[in-house]
């Protein structure tokens, strides 16, 4: 057990490091409303910017973050991506039991609350599906599949501490791990979590460390999401996808910063 065990035992942590293209704090303000409504847990924001914070967070942890990273957006443009230092969540989380969520994950039901009731060190989202089918998640042509750092449960145990130390090691020595695991592309938290999990489990996969169901991901452009008759109408460029009300990982950051998104949040939290 970690000596930093918090009095508040359970909560959600979201990271928001704004980039040139995306104001993650503003997105977190909106998605936190969903977390609050559906999980009813305190939320801590970890950020390097105190501007635009509107949601009433349990805590705001301000850290310095000077790291930059780049990757292709879903619009095929190279964008700044300030995703480094996620491993620090182990120390920064004020909770003994933490649910680490990406700001682009929309919590629209309470299924995640079922996970708390079991014994575990950490549980990571393994698989995802999109309207087009199962998400292909190989880290490279000849590499392993990645896990999704979008949704991570962890408790402050010794094993989990090792996991985050390993993630730190992968981040700091990314060139080495990229070569060793034949990874393609720049650093991703998904890759770091996957490699750390793999190494910690003796270079094998252990399904008991993963969440038992798939994450719904919308990877393409989103024009709008409407909440109608208990359904989600996800309007894309050339089609409408109809989903029951469920958690959705929306990759289109442009949409998440739009007025349409704010309207959707208002409708679905009313």
């Amino acid at each position, binding site marked *: 057990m970690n000596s930093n065990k918090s009095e508040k035992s359970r909560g959600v942590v979201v990271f928001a490091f704004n980039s040139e293209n995306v104001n993650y704090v503003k997105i977190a303000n909106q998605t936190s409303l969903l977390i609050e409504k559906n999980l009813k847990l305190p939320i801590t924001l970890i950020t390097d910017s105190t501007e635009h914070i509107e949601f009433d967070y349990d805590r705001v942890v301000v850290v310095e973050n000077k790291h930059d990273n780049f990757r292709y957006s879903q619009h095929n443009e190279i964008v700044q991506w300030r995703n480094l230092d996620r491993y620090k969540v182990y120390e920064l989380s004020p909770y003994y039991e933490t649910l680490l969520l990406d700001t682009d994950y929309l919590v629209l039901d309470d299924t995640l609350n079922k996970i708390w009731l079991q014994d575990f060190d950490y549980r990571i989202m393994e698989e995802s599906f999109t309207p087009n089918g199962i998400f292909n998640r190989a880290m490279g042509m000849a590499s392993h599949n990645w896990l999704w750092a979008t949704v991570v449960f962890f408790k402050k145990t010794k094993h989990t501490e090792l996991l985050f130390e390993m993630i730190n090691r992968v981040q700091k020595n990314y060139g080495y791990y990229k070569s060793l695991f034949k990874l393609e592309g720049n650093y991703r938290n998904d890759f770091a979590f996957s490699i750390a999990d793999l190494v910690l489990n003796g270079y094998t996969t252990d399904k008991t460390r993963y969440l038992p169901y798939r994450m719904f991901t919308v990877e393409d452009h989103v024009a709008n999401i409407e909440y109608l008759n208990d359904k989600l109408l996800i309007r894309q460029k050339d*089609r409408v996808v109809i989903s029951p009300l469920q958690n959705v990982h929306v990759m289109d950051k442009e949409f998440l910063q739009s007025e349409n998104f704010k309207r959707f949040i208002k409708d679905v939290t009313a």
Partner: protein
Amino acid sequence: MNTVVENLVEQIKQSTSNQINKKILREKTITDLHMVYGNGMFLISPTILSFVATWPDETLYLEDVYENPIEINRDEFLYNARLHYQTVMNTWHQKHNELKQIRKI
């Protein structure tokens, strides 16, 4: 005339695929079929319901989705699992029918 054509194109662009919507609904149903019992997580299926229903003893041990043997009180588990299964499957059936009624363009 142009506006009519443009509107038509816009409508076609907004078409929806019943097959895709059905698959998304099924995934949600599978998620919802997971039930917590005695610190374990179970995917409630006809197999598990049949097995527990025919078990002769009051107490048994069942492996959950996380490969843990969980102590089960047969009657309590069966009651909860049946209720859970029926609720989720009823919702699936209802939502499935609603999807069928959504007209494809």
